[in-house]
């Protein structure tokens, strides 16, 4: 084993597992599913029968400092939900959609799935099987290895334009060689008290309401902690939120116009000479070309595009650029526009030309154990098989270190069989018909003729009901061991099993067992613990050791780019071809893309298709989070459902008056592609009467399974096409034109 790496530790009063008043307490991390992928520190309480009876936040864990949201507090009611999948099941391919499952043993399931996958590999080639995952459960590592060791290059997730986090991650890697997050002291176990840490003077919350959404390694209430310590915030959001109400400036943006706003702010910063000359000269590439490009975006023009008053755009740019320390916490809204990469590039440039890079209270780089976008075991795949990855030819940017296929091309290929036919699909904890899939009817029709489909999940979802031939019951996080090596701050932490429900197995156990059957050499480990130890081998710690000492913080240093810590060659600078932060991207140019940021009107939209406004006068954004639900989860958990019983569409009071809609009315939300049913909430939080906002990922677990739990009428993605940006990244999930009209009796 390698020498033990130097970490900074937290003082623990007690071992990782101890007894307290007749209960056993186990310390560890939380990780989806159920719930999000932040990895909060939790204490899991089990009784003498081994049942999970209570969850508390771990006050010794610096990440959340004892705090928890309602989804983890309510964990026992998810774990013991009477709707859980408890054992493997199968049904005949001809019975897809019918509630006619037959219980089988794990051995039968493994044997039969192994035989089918081997048969498909032999007949049609391994590339004809798709390996799909959903949201950021900690399974990318294992499912990518399963795909590649089987021989298929086609690992990914069924989301148009890969429009969740990967655009931001790949955009950042392409132009800077690293990924960047706001410095909220999360890299230090002593947090805000760390002597090297400085509170940002200004934080911009851009297309993100982190206190509710808790996205991607960013514990939302850190923003509140920092506001208490004097930080000012600016909010870019079409809705008035709690944070917006407390912001120094609220920018009520028209959904989908983020790139224009960023370019307009850059225009002000460049033309008023507010940028950091020293940083720009020393560490960036292509500033002059960027300065020229932003001349196309004067604030007056940007005001017309974004519907934000010009003076607010100017004011925001000045405030941001003149702050001593500033950072931008951005959200999914940035990924969920079709031309996401140029939007990301423009927003990032705001932090770059102001020199808020790699320093306290600015944008920083979380240390990595595994490269986030890289998967595990790409070397298992031959060059010949790698070249068959779907979308690689059309979207060359995917070649630069990213492991996934391109989902829009995938759907096309499922339909056409061009350049080769697809035959199988492994869906591990993904629910595309309810949640991430665009145009779910199209996805369903493309998938329904595949020869062989397996689903792995916590519950029977609409997608499993519609499509799966085999279904395997997955464990929730208290039912499994795991490593917290996902996104965000890469602390060394473990997820620790405390209970067992039915015959459920963890994703990792399932992947290991099936992987071993399909390609024994690629899965040499006796059990998952050995597999975890192998992954973290470079740290010098085994899984059991890490569990005891966790959380382990890598020693964090600022100004890595000055110290030669960013590049493999040890030279100062950034890990890009030019060694600089590329405001003009050599990698985009190499992939045939515009090397500079630009704005393109979302289409359809008020700017691109004004002729549609008579029919569809409202601008809809989707997917704003609510407290109790994570994506398509939690509709079947009564305590959490009580806080959000129905799928809501927020409608401005003026618009409601015009349309004669009242609170609680059921409406159809419709565009030229399709419609979805929603319940009206009249609220002034929409900052323009033309805006409306609705939930995503609804299904009704209490409804008829053979009607797919009502998902066909509820899927807001009925309105969203499979259509991505020029780079293969980005898709318009959060900006479209719609009309509303009342649901008739009996509909």
């Amino acid at each position, binding site marked *: 084993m390698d020498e033990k790496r130097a970490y900074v530790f937290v003082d623990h009063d007690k071992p990782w597992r101890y007894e307290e008043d007749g209960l056993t307490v186990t310390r560890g991390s939380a990780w989806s599913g159920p719930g999000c992928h932040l990895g909060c520190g939790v204490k899991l309480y089990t009784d003498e029968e081994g049942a999970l009876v*209570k969850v*508390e936040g771990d006050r010794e864990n610096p990440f959340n400092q004892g705090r*928890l949201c309602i989804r983890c507090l309510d964990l026992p009611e998810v774990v013991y939900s009477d709707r859980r999948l408890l054992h493997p099941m199968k049904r005949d391919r001809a019975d897809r959609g019918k509630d006619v499952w037959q219980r089988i043993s794990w051995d039968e399931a493994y044997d039969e799935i192994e035989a089918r996958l081997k048969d498909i590999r032999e007949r049609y080639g391994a590339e004809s099987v798709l390996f799909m995952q959903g949201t950021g459960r900690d399974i990318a590592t294992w499912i990518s290895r399963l795909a590649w060791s089987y021989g298929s290059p086609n690992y990914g997730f069924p989301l148009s334009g890969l429009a969740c986090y990967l655009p931001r991650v790949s955009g950042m890697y392409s132009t800077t060689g690293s990924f960047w997050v706001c410095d909220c002291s999360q890299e230090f176990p002593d947090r805000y008290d760390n002597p090297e840490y400085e509170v940002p003077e200004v934080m911009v919350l851009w297309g993100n309401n982190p206190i509710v959404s808790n996205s991607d390694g960013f514990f939302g209430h850190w923003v509140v902690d920092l506001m208490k310590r004097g930080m000012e915030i600016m909010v870019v959001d079409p809705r008035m939120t709690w944070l917006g109400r407390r912001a120094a400036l609220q920018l009520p943006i028209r959904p989908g116009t983020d790139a224009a706003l960023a370019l307009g702010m850059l225009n002000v910063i460049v033309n008023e000479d507010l940028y950091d000359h020293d940083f720009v000269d020393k560490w960036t590439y292509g500033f002059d070309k960027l300065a020229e490009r932003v001349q196309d975006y004067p604030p007056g023009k940007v005001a017309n595009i974004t519907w934000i008053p010009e003076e607010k755009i100017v004011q925001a740019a000045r405030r941001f650029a003149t702050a001593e320390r500033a950072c931008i916490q951005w959200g999914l809204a940035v990924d969920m526009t079709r031309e996401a990469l140029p939007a990301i590039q423009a927003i990032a440039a705001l932090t770059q030309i102001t020199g808020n890079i790699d320093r306290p209270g600015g944008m920083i780089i979380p240390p990595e154990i595994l490269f986030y976008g890289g998967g595990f075991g790409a070397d298992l795949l031959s060059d010949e098989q790698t070249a068959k990855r779907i979308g690689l030819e059309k979207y060359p940017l995917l070649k630069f270190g990213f492991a996934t296929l391109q989902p829009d091309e995938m759907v096309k290929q499922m339909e056409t069989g061009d350049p080769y036919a697809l035959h199988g699909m492994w869906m591990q904890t993904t629910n595309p018909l309810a949640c991430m899939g665009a145009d779910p009817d199209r996805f369903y029709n493309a998938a329904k003729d595949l020869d062989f489909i397996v689903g792995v999940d916590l519950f029977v979802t609409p997608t499993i009901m519609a499509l799966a031939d085999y279904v395997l019951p997955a464990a929730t996080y208290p039912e499994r061991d795991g490593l917290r090596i996902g996104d965000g701050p890469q602390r060394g932490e473990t997820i620790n099993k405390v209970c067992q429900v039915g015959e459920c197995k963890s994703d990792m156990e399932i992947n290991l067992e099936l992987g071993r059957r399909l390609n024994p050499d690629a899965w040499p480990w006796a059990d998952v613990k050995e597999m975890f130890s192998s992954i973290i081998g470079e740290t010098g710690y085994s899984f059991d050791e890490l569990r005891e000492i966790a959380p382990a913080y890598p020693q964090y240093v600022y100004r890595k780019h000055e110290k030669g810590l960013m590049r493999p060659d040890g030279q100062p600078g950034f890990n890009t071809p030019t060694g600089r932060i590329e405001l003009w991207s050599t990698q985009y140019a190499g992939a045939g893309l515009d090397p500079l940021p630009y704005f393109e009107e979302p289409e359809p939209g008020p700017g691109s298709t004004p002729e549609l406004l008579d029919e569809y006068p409202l601008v809809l954004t989707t997917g704003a989070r609510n407290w109790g639900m994570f994506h398509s989860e939690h509709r079947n958990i009564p*305590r959490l459902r009580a806080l959000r019983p129905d799928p809501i569409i927020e409608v401005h009071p003026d618009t409601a008056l015009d349309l004669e809609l009242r609170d609680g009315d059921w409406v159809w939300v419709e565009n030229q592609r399709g419609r979805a049913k929603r319940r009206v909430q009249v609220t002034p939080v929409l900052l323009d009467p033309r805006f409306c906002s609705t939930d995503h990922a609804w299904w009704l677990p209490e409804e008829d399974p053979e009607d797919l739990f009502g998902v066909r009428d509820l899927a807001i993605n009925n309105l969203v096409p499979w259509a991505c940006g020029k780079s293969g990244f980005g898709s318009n999930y959060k900006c479209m034109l719609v009309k509303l009209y009342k649901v008739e009796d009996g509909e």
Partner: protein
Amino acid sequence: MADYGILVDYEWCTGCHTCETACQMEHHLPVGQFGIKLNEVGPYEYAPDRWQLAYIPVPTDQCDFCAERLGQGKLPTCQHHCQAQCIEVGPIEELAKKATSKKKLVLFHN
């Protein structure tokens, strides 16, 4: 035990419902019953760019200040888990002294 109270700093309460759910789970309360219940005031715009939007959790008759947890040397579960760290449970006399230390504090003598 001295009289206890709950001091809420509603400048910072974000309305996350954590206190409600933590309490329900600690005290095994059914859905719909609360030891502490969140209230929303707003949102509405009362002048251009001036918004009222605040949250205030209010303890109910079912709140026992987590007497059992206090006996074990633990914080009451609402205070322990509060994401905005804006709830403090303690002897009423002590909290009364703190209640004037800043604006937007409310003290419940429950």
